[in-house]
Each structure stands twice: as C-alpha cells, then as structure tokens.
C-alpha cells in the first residue's frame, strides 16, 4: 500500500526533482568556477573585503570568511545551495498532503484501503527520496567543482564532507516544519507562497541575526544551525544548534502524524 503511494508520488515529483537538482548543480559549478580569478587577486580582494561594513558581511554570512581560500569561497556558494534546497524541501513539506485537498484527490485516496499513516509514510518517503537525489547531485557537483576550479590550492576534504553531510538534515527541518504548518493552517490554496516564505524567511532571519549580533534568532533558523561559515572556520558543527534542528524535526514529524491521523479531511464545499 505504502509502496503504491510511494511510486505514484515519486513519479509526480520527477520533474521537480530534476529541476531542483540541475539548479543546484548549476549554482555550484558556475559560481565556483569564479574562484580561480578570486584567488589570483587574493591581496586585492582581502583588502576590498575590509572596506565593506561588517553588517553587510554578516548579512551574507561572510564575517571573518576568507573568500580567497577554497573552502571559504565554497562556504559562500554553499549558502546559496542551502537556500535552494530549503525552498525545495519546504515546498515538498507544505504540499505533501495539502495538494490532495485542493485538487479534491483526498477523497479518492483516503477512500482506498490504506491507513492515514501509510499514506503519510508513502508520501514522506517519496519526498525524502527526491531530496536525497538533490543531495547526491550537490555532492557530486561540489566535488567536481572543487577538483576543477581549486586554483592550485589544497583544501580539507573532511570539511567539505561535513558541510555536505549536514545538508540532508537541514532539508529535513524544512520538509517537516512545512508539513506541520500545512496541517495547522485551515486550508492551503497555493503551496508556493508558503514554501518560499518558510525557506526564504528562515534565511532572512539568519541574515538579520547576523546583522544584529542577536543570538536568539540562531535558535530557530537552520541557516544558523548549519552555518557554512561556522563549519568552515571551526571544522565542526555547532553541536547544540544541530540538536535544536533535530529536535524540531522529530517533534514536527510526530505532531504531523498525530494531526493527520486525527484531522477531518477538507472537502470541496
């Protein structure tokens, strides 16, 4: 039963998975291909960076970031990758069950001999598969980009792995929070505003928190939990913040299952 739903959901997502994956690959490779020219002018660039107001650098997560090093520059690219996959995951989460209710297919699907938890599991696994594929593409594209455009500099592969490994958990945050939001809102007519709002909103919160130097906002946005700048500089995760992410994921998913199983399925009228 779950498999039937999984296959169907994955088929419906194929298009979206391909587009997001290509998008991520393009960002990584195109953006990072500029690195050699940056590295050549290292002295000039570093001098220029000191001219920028610290608030601006903070907003782009560039505080103390050495963008003339391979990983420093990659950290900057990675922030854009994060933004992309955040919106992807938020869209998947918000749309997971709400689409069925806007397109009236919920009555079709839920009158089949499947339990609601089977439905949610099938759909969730399909979304996770889509995210995993995008993740794999991000890994491959990153390794290729760094191999091709490292400008002759060496870098710690361990840090790169650390950055990329956090990406899936980072996405889990958005898919599960998006899902629980969609189940708490009375009716979602269009997924995109919610998905964009959640993904981009969290990014803005993180940038804002950087400008203000206000630590409180770090607690809720995964852009801080998995801050590439922090990971590059410290070569480790900010463990307590990662724990917050994982906790939010677990609580959201548990609440989503409970809520979906007990809710009234909205009808057309």
């Amino acid at each position: 039963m779950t498999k039937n739903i999984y296959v169907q959901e994955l088929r419906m997502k194929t298009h979206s998975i391909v587009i997001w994956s290509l998008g991520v690959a393009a960002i990584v490779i195109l953006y990072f291909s500029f690195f050699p020219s940056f590295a050549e002018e290292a002295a000039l660039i570093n001098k220029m960076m000191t001219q920028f107001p610290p608030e601006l650098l903070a907003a782009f997560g560039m505080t103390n970031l050495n963008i003339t090093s391979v990983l420093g520059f990659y950290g900057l690219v990675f922030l854009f990758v994060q933004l992309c996959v955040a919106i992807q995951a938020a869209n998947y989460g918000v749309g997971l069950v709400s689409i069925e209710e806007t397109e009236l297919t919920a009555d079709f699907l839920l009158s089949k001999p499947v339990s609601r938890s089977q439905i949610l599991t099938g759909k969730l696994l399909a979304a996770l598969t889509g995210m995993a594929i995008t993740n794999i593409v991000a890994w491959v594209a990153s390794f290729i980009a760094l191999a091709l455009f490292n400008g002759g500099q060496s870098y710690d592969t361990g840090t790169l792995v650390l950055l990329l490994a956090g990406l899936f958990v980072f996405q889990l945050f958005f898919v599960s929070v998006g899902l629980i939001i969609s189940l708490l809102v009375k009716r979602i007519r269009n997924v995109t505003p919610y998905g964009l709002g959640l993904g981009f909103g969290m990014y803005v919160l993180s940038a804002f928190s950087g400008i203000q130097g206000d630590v409180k906002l770090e607690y809720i946005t995964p852009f801080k939990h998995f801050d590439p700048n922090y990971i590059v500089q410290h070569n480790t995760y900010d463990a307590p913040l990662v724990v917050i992410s994982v906790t939010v994921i677990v609580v959201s998913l548990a609440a989503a299952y409970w809520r979906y199983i007990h809710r009234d399925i909205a009808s057309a009228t």
Partner: protein
Amino acid sequence: MNVITVNNLTKYYGKARGIIDVSFSVEEGEIFGFIGPNGAGKSTTIRLLLSLIYPTGGSAAIFGKDVWKFGTEIRKNIGYLPSEVFYYEGMKVIDLLKYSAGFYDGDFTERMHELAEYMELDLKRRIEDLSYGNKKKVGIVQGLLHNPKLLFLDEPTSGLDPLMQRKFFNLIREENRRGVTIFFSSHILGEVQRLCDRVGIIREGRIVEISDIRTLQENNYKKIRITAPDVEPDYFALPDVSNLHAENGTIKFFFKGDINTIVQKISGIRVKDVTIEEPTLEEIFMHYYER
C-alpha cells in the same frame, strides 16, 4: 444482514451543522436512496462512513465493524464515487485507474477495459483535458473497478448526458443483481425513484423520513385531472379531495381514499378526458422540503 448501521450520528464543523442525530440502516443487497436538497448533509454522512471525517457523536458500522476503528479493512470492499471530480496533475486516465487498482488485491486489468469501453471512456487521455462528464466517468470506473461489495454514489449523474445516465443506471442495476449493496445519494428525486428500493430523506441535517418507495407512493394521493367543460370544480368537493382547482377548463385535484368513490363520481358526468396518475416522488416529498 445490515451492511450499514448508523446510530444517532452527529457531526458539527466547529459550530456549523453537518448532520444531527442521524440513524438508519441499509440491508445487504438493497439500493438505498439518500435524498435531500443541497447542503442537507448527504456528503457529510457519506464522508463520515468512509472515515474521511470524524463524528461529534453517535456511532456507525459497516459490515458489522466500527467505521473509524476498522476503516482501512472495511474500505477494501467499498467503492466510492465522490461528488466532485478530481484529477492528479498530468495523469492519464489509465494511470489513475492502475493507481486505484493497485490498492486492492487482484488483477483488474480486464475489468478496467470492460468498464471503460462500456462507459465510452478513452483511457489514453489526460484527465485534466477531459470534459466534466468524462471526468465523472473516470470516477465511476474507479469506484467499480475492484468489485466492491458496497458502493457509495454521491450525486453520480451530474454532468452525464441522458444516454450515459441510462447506461450508468443499467450498470448499477447489474452490480446490484450480483449482490452489491448501493448507497445512492442524490437531490434529484426522479433518479432515486427509478433505481432505489428504499429511501431516506434528509433535511437540514436530520432524517425526516425513511420508507419504502412503493409504500410511499401507494399510501398516497392520486393525482386526478378531468376535462369537462360543463362541470363546475365544486362538483368534486368531497372530504377526500384536496388542492382542488380549475385551470383552462381542466379540473385538477389530489384524492386520497377509496378510489371507487371518485370513479363513480366521474361516471356521473360527461367528460372529454380523464387522467388518474401516481404523484411523482417530487410531489410527495415536497412537504418535507417546504416546511
């Protein structure tokens, strides 16, 4: 044996009324008509029985099992045609039907082609490109595909042309002959009259009457029209006559009582034309609607 048993079922959406204190039962093999104006609570009742929504109070059982506890198991033998048409973006008819069949044990390929051919449904087209009536057909085939023992039809004929409606009714009768129990919800009395054995009338969320279609008609009024130019309507002013009036030289009234009385009365005058007919369900039920 009862296939459906509903006891004091109540559903409120927040403060809005869904249904109140609804009780009825449907026996195995019968075609039960569920009739009422739009917004009376027909879809709410069906969606409760499919456990799409949860009740505020009361209980319901299908095949003797609690609807909400054993929903997944019960639904193996249920077919449902939703009142609203639906489609998954970009999906072809055949893909949807295969997806639907995938939820049940067995191979339904042959039946799928039979049903689609009978309902004149093109399997290769995208559902979103179909007309309303053709989308409705997709719903019908999807609901019948897995040989369910109980069928819920929620306003099934809307959007179907008369020819298709007839084919659909024949299909439903055929299913019924094979022992399938049918719960037929509609606001069109004529089609319920054509198809159903028993009927429940729902109005503003409450059941107002459950009865045999035949008893309803037999115990009721005869509709009589007499064209007799030389006779005043008052000639028929008898205790058993109601709604007496004349229209373009034709006297019209309802009669309830010993039919011989009225036949003798008519034989006493010179008439041009006489019609005595059963009132339609529409006319019988009118007083349930307009209260």
